[in-house]
């Protein structure tokens, strides 16, 4: 029998009441059906805002292949690694809040533009204006800062070239621009580091068209070195800390997130190898009642990150994304009360095979 209207043939997940309003929020499922497959060992590169810094380790723990293209040098403690910006993203750029800054990093890394050579003085140390937070103690000289940045640019190049998928979390539309060289700063000069110069540094709130253009160009640049690169866009659910627009932070945040969400949606519509993963909706959706925000109503709690990653993995595997259930043991040989020596030797053989396999030429 023909349906009376198109809605009658839609799945349950397409209707707000049964898909969102009625289930326990933690049992909501099927929010993301990936456009493309991602294998367990496919290198995945992550970049973006603070929220993105939580994704790498979550991917690793989920069994995915998060690619850290700029691992910390040996000898640093866990705290020192974190302070210096290692292990947060696939390269040590620090937070990348805007599509413009992503495009800028890619243009420098892939030889499309020359990065400025300027270093900011900080006492007798030097700071990278484009990575102001990654070396708390600063650099000994501008040359050392530039050498360090070159390592990061090489890591960006390696990561983008070798990745199967780039996960980029867009965070903000507001940024600060430099009137001298036209670059975009990750943060306002004079906040994290540096000195604010009103004659040189100006705020800019990117429009949909600008953010869409920057993101499109960033993707095109990356695909020059990796034509098969797939892009997974997300929008950080973490609100802005402050707005430079002079307006209230609440609507300013609404503008930023709306624009970024629209850009992600538009790019996903335009390109079969660009997908959108709804981490923003999974944290900020009204049905969740802010439960995944910390006391400051900004920071996403570890439970929130786990919730998002559960949906991510469930989407990849086409599974229910509810709380983790005890898993059945993988297939095993039948066990009897009188296990024979042959059984024991089969595990020995597996171990020996594994050792041999390690040294096999690849």
């Amino acid at each position, binding site marked *: 029998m023909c349906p009376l209207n198109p809605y009658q043939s839609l799945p349950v997940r397409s209707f707000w009441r049964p898909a969102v309003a009625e289930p326990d929020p933690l049992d909501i499922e099927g929010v993301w059906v990936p456009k493309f497959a991602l294998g367990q060992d496919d290198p995945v590169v992550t970049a973006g805002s603070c929220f993105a810094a939580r994704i790498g380790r979550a991917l690793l723990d989920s069994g995915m292949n998060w690619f850290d293209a700029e691992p910390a040098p040996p000898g640093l403690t866990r705290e020192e690694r974190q302070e210096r910006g290692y292990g947060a993203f696939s390269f040590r750029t620090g937070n990348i809040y805007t599509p413009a800054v992503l495009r800028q990093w890619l243009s420098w890394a892939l030889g499309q533009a020359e990065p400025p050579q300027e270093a900011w003085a900080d006492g007798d140390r030097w700071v990278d204006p484009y990575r102001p937070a990654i070396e708390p103690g600063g650099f000994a000289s501008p040359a050392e800062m530039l050498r360090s940045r070159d390592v990061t640019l090489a890591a960006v190049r390696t990561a983008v070239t070798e990745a199967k998928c780039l996960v980029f979390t867009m965070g903000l539309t507001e940024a600060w621009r430099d009137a001298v060289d036209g670059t975009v700063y990750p943060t306002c000069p004079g906040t994290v580091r540096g000195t604010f110069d009103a004659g040189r540094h100006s705020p800019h709130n990117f429009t949909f068209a600008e953010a869409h253009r920057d993101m499109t160009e960033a993707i095109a640049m990356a695909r020059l070195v990796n034509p098969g690169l797939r892009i997974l866009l997300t929008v950080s659910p973490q609100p802005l800390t402050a707005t430079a627009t002079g307006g209230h932070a609440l609507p300013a945040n609404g503008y930023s997130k709306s624009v970024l969400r629209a850009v992600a949606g538009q790019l996903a519509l335009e390109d079969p190898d660009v997908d959108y993963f709804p981490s923003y909706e999974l944290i900020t959706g009204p049905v969740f009642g802010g439960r995944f925000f910390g006391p400051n109503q900004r920071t996403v709690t570890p439970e929130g990150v786990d919730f998002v990653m559960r949906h991510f993995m469930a989407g990849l595997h086409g599974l229910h994304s509810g709380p983790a259930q005890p898993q059945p043991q993988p297939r*095993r040989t039948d066990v009897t009360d009188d296990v024979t020596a042959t059984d024991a030797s089969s595990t020995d053989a*597996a171990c020996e095979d594994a050792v041999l396999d*390690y040294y096999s030429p690849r």
Partner: protein
Amino acid sequence: MRTPSLTTTAPARFLLLGDSHAGPIGRAARNAGIPFQGGPIGAGREFTDSFFSVRETPGGTDVVFRSDEAEEHYRRFLKELGADGLSGLGVPLVTTFGFCAHFVALRENWDLYRDRAGAVPPGFLDSPLFDAIVRAAVRDALAFYGRAVGLGLRVLAVLPPQRVPGQSDPAVFMAAQERVRLAVAELGAEIVDLRRRTAGPDGLQRPALCEPDDEIHGNLAFGRIILSELLDRGL
């Protein structure tokens, strides 16, 4: 600080010696471009008792593996590291020796201690006798840890994947692993215990981290998690 470039000529960050459970760690490091030396040098049952002897050389104290294959691998790794022997090792040692809990927990080993229901009673698994039996079962592995730590090396011991093959008793596996963990920690080695990150609510390895073709090993994804922890610890 300038980050060293990660090429094959970069100095190794660690030496990896172990049983087959070392395989995923080494493969993960190789794939990530992390310079290191080593890998599995034999099956787990080979590294419990009587698997090495100590030798004094002009370069200092060294160990000699009784298995020709293990010794050959070990010498090759040392040569690549520019070390004459264990005491000359300038990088941390990562090892899985002694943690073949599935081997220690083979069911027939514990038949004598089963109750009428066929289970090894929890009281026995908590007993000093059980502790003594397990320590005896892996005594040479413990001796190796003691020797390596005694030479001033930084030694990291990696717990195995939480997989219990059909031939092994799960309760004994868990208890034996814990006894070995405590014994190795007492000797001064750092324990790399990532069960919170790798096991499911049932305490067993999550399927996503299991080698699909057998009942014992972790897969490459498991190795990646171990590697991330090693790097977090400054290796």
